[in-house]
């Protein structure tokens, strides 16, 4: 069995490990248009901050490819999938045959049309190692940085460069930060934390037009800058899949086995959409754990094993200047809220299930909550009053606890 994987990030690593858990022999070829071994994208802000190094960002040991019998074609781009002949065409003209193919092409920055953007000389996106390196090369201690987008990527970028820039201003059309993972109270708390570390916000505002070194905002304000970072959103790389005839919605449609609608073509990670069990809706869950688990399931199934990844939930662990936020699931339901200085806790319950939570400041043992969501544990089978106080295994019945702690899964 010959395996080909397009992309060389988390979903690809999951796939290789999934394949090798079943088939130790079949040759695997990984195609990557980046010139690096697999590294962690979330760590690019930590790299600029100085809390990791390029070496430490590699998500697997140096002998990963060799040990797993993987041929890595780095710096090569896949441009075509011929599903009838079962080949992948590269930009360089080569053609690679496959028996099973994984598309793990991830996502790319979305840059909306913005008037005058082409006048800006020093503009960056913030998704790849090369993006971080380019930004780093341009940054000076005097740089005035304008970041468009107050989501996870824009704000992680801001934190990463805080100690190396003169000033940082973040503009967002939304009237609050991190709207995809937080509610109003949570957004406010995190905004105060980030502001108190010297980052400025212009919210509910957007760029009407760029000049060479300034942005004229809709509100009439003008922001002068030396460097611009555009971080308004990401788009799944779905083109190869569409062209191969795979069903594509917002992302490539895959089932619980990570199979696309075309035989022998699988897909995983940020390029896909999958079913969020807390809402039942299909969406792109662009988070690293999801990419690994989907990639791993794909790998096992590609190699002839049986693995289903059927309990995808959105979840995020993120911190800014030492204040941590852990969130999971969705927020439609009855709310149980607790606040005290420096701490915000919200649990959301619906249909006898824990659907979601937001924890800021006090995050200990949050995984016990996450597992209730992922396992869809009926709340009348646990002592939910105890769980409201804090996540604890005491809330389970002695029998369930004996199963959990007595065996090992």
């Amino acid at each position: 069995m010959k395996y080909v994987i397009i992309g060389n990030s988390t979903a690809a690593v999951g796939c290789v490990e999934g394949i090798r858990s079943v088939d130790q022999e079949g040759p695997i070829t990984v195609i990557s248009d980046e010139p690096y071994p697999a590294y962690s994208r979330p760590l690019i802000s930590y790299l600029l901050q100085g809390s990791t190094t390029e070496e430490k960002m590699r998500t697997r040991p140096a002998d990963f490819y060799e040990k797993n019998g993987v041929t890595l074609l780095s710096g090569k781009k896949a441009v075509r999938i011929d599903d009838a002949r079962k080949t992948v065409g590269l930009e360089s003209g080569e053609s690679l045959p496959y028996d099973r193919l994984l598309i793990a092409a991830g996502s790319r920055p979305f840059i909306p049309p913005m008037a005058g953007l082409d006048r800006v000389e020093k503009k960056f996106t913030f998704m790849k190692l090369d993006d971080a390196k380019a930004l780093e090369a341009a940054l000076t201690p005097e740089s005035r940085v304008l970041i468009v987008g107050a989501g996870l990527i824009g704000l992680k970028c801001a934190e990463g460069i805080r100690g190396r820039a003169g000033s940082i201003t973040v503009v967002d059309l939304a009237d609050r930060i991190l709207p995809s993972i937080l509610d109003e109270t949570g957004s406010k708390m995190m905004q105060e934390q980030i502001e108190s570390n010297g980052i400025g916000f212009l919210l509910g505002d957007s760029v009407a037009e760029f000049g060479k070194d300034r942005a004229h905002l809709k509100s009439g304000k003008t922001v002068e800058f030396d460097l611009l970072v555009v971080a308004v959103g990401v788009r799944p790389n779905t083109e190869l899949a569409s062209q191969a005839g795979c069903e594509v919605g917002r992302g490539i449609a895959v089932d619980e086995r990570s199979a696309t609608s075309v035989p022998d073509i699988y897909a995983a990670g940020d390029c896909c959409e999958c079913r969020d069990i807390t809402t039942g809706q299909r969406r792109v869950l662009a988070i690293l754990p999801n990419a690994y688990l989907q990639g791993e399931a794909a790998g096992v199934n590609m190699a002839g094993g049986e693995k289903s990844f059927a309990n995808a939930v959105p979840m995020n662990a993120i911190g800014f200047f030492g204040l941590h936020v852990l969130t999971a699931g969705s927020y439609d339901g009855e709310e149980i809220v607790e606040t005290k200085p420096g701490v915000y806790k919200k649990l959301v319950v619906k249909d006898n299930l824990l659907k979601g939570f937001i924890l800021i400041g006090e995050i200990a043992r949050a995984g016990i909550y996450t597992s209730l969501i992922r396992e869809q544990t009926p709340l009348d089978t646990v002592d939910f009053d105890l769980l409201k106080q804090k996540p604890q295994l005491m809330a389970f019945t002695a029998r369930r606890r004996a199963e959990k702690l007595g065996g090992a899964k």
Partner: protein
Amino acid sequence: MKRVYVNEEWCLGCHLCEYNCAFAATGERDMAKALKGMEIHPKIQIEGDNRISFAVSCRHCDDPICMKSCIAGAISRRDGVIHVDKDKCVGCFTCILVCPYGAVLPAPDGHAVRKCELCTDNACGEPACVAGCPNGAIVFEER
């Protein structure tokens, strides 16, 4: 593989395992000297009320979701033991967000996490919580 298990009916809730765990990590010889007046940061935690108590530490899962979710690739399996490379860890707490047992804890400095590594990461060799349990409630065995 041998793991640490707790027999709930024998656990006294005395918290000695927490002290032995914290002590093992210091590498010191005298517990009183090592821990006196210090805030301890054990990797095993006692839960419960005045009727039931039990110790919780990493299960070294066969399907370790912490390892699969780590954003830095800092968690790996070494001879069965789920190990955190403190040098690679950036303290994002994704592992805390996913561990179903609440077995990963922030490290005292906040820049990494800590969890039970069955005393393979210190000089004890065998789990210190087990050796020091006065009622034989915590065991280290194959199941």
